[in-house]
């Protein structure tokens, strides 16, 4: 059952299968996905082609987001940067959720000593500043997309682990779990078919929020000089190099920032819609 194909509106008698409130963020995310997968479809400039005769041009028809201090088309750089930034967002969240699910389910299901031990580990992990983790990782391995993914991923995992554990504990006590057990279903089947979906569903919105937050966090790391190496057009790197020009060529700092905000906003909104629909379907 598709969560999105819910008839809501009519325009001139034509059924629109999707709500506007879902359509706009969905389109935006699709656009960004296209930028990540096939950037050449959205722009024919090259993201690294310099042109020192035409630096710092304001936005115009030929350069939608203007040009930067090396004469590169900023719109093209934002488009090509989607792959790395989105990659960091998805990768970090994916890593965080994997760790969180492993730890949260182990703690929630096993209980007792395992729960206590994991609880203490999480406390220590929480006390460890994410910033330090990033600094140390980058000191060890040098700045790169992988390092950013690992740093942000491991850094956000404890928070999610706690939430997952809380959810697992709550769902464990539900009546239908007991019933399923009484019916003779194997533990693994119970976990897979009942526990997991019901525990994770309320977290869908959190996960999509996390994707946006990971991208924002990665851009913060770029500010501290821990970002991806140039001439990468990763959005955080664009924000970092555009900073100097905020009073003279504001588009270099504002445009990539708006894109980051737009992606975070759209992904979050889609997540909330998805969670809404899933919860509606579950009821």
């Amino acid at each position, binding site marked *: 059952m598709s969560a999105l194909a819910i008839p809501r509106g009519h325009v001139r008698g034509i059924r629109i299968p999707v709500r506007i409130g879902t359509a706009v963020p969905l389109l935006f995310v699709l656009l960004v996905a296209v930028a990540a997968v096939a950037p050449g479809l959205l722009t024919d400039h090259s993201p690294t082609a310099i042109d020192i005769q035409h630096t710092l041009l304001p936005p115009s028809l030929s350069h939608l987001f203007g040009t930067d201090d090396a004469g590169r088309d900023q719109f093209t750089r934002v488009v090509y940067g989607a792959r790395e930034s989105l990659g960091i967002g998805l990768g970090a969240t994916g890593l965080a959720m994997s760790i969180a699910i492993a730890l949260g389910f182990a703690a929630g299901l096993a209980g007792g000593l395992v729960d206590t031990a994991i609880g*203490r580990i999480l*406390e*220590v992990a*929480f*006390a*460890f*500043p*994410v*910033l*330090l983790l990033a*600094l*140390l990782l980058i*000191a*060890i391995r040098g700045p790169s997309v992988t390092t950013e993914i690992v740093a942000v991923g491991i850094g956000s995992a404890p*928070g999610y682990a*706690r939430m997952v554990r809380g959810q697992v504990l709550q769902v464990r006590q539900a009546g239908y779990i007991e019933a399923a057990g009484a019916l003779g279903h194997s533990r693994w089947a119970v976990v897979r078919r009942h526990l997991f979906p019901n525990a994770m569903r309320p977290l869908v*919105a959190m996960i999509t*929020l996390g994707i*946006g*937050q990971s991208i*924002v966090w990665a*851009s*913060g790391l770029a*500010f*501290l000089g821990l970002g991806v190496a140039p001439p990468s057009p990763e959005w955080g790197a664009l*924000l970092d190099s555009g*900073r100097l020009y*905020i*009073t003279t060529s504001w588009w270099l*700092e504002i445009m990539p*920032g708006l894109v*980051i*905000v737009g992606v*975070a*906003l759209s992904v*979050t*909104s889609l997540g909330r819609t998805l969670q809404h629909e899933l919860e509606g379907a579950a009821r």
Partner: protein
Amino acid sequence: MPTMRTARRVVIKVVTAIAVLIAAASVTFFAQLLVPGDRATAILNQQNGRAQQWTPAQLAPVDHKFGFDRPLIVQYLDYVGGLFRGNLGTSYTQYKPVTQVIGAELAPSLILTVVALIAAWVLALAVTLLTARRGRFLAALGSTWEALTASLPAYWVGVVLLVVFAVELRIFPVIGGTSPMGTVLPVLTLAIPLAGFLGQVTRDEFGKVLDQPFITTARTRGMRETAVRLKHALRHSVVPAITLSGWALGALVSGAVITENVFGRPGIGQVLVTAVNTRDVPTVSGIVLVVAAVYVAANLLVDVAYGLVDPRLRTA
């Protein structure tokens, strides 16, 4: 006897807290040793603004002075032993006790973090109370605002606030330092995105609570909407946000480094970044210790807050 039980629980909590602190500091100590490169080289380079290798003859006195030539286990045990005596070690680069290095810049960080958290709460609660479930337009507006602010990169907010309010409009000073007027913009930089985050979580919970039977009961008894929201719904909906606050307090102390950088404000975020760059192992471990302590204290406060807000959560 209940007092015995409470006392034992308190003791366990304290012991656990100390264990967490020691563990965090230990992990940091060893993690830094994992970073490739020789510590004596880093120290000499940093003193002279260079980036070169040094001869063994130049490195030996440095190694000896800081005890790098002793076995790792001895160095570690020395360090942990010092922790129990309250001695966090001496900074490799500033030649001062780590407690002095951190102490000088801890207060501004804590003030910034706590005030930012309070401000974030005020903003989040205001937006939630005023806009949650009050008709489609207001609800949409509130939701949008929260989602938008939660997605803003911190230094983007900071630089824009600096340029607009300090440079253009001249309301606040550019160099904040630690003065009250100079703290406003840094606080806002941290509070605005955090408010969006806390607000989203509270709003969700608020919506769920307003659906509960006891709310309907209160309404049918004749309570006005505002009173219902304030007296009943709010208390229960802030629980997840309180949980998040515990984490936020710990994270903000060192995560505020971007804000400190943009506004030229002292703080331990800056100290941390410099210390990692110069491989000042005792200072980095000391900061982790402090952040862990803040986090543990914040968690204790969170537990107390739970008890105040929702009696069901009070650990009997």
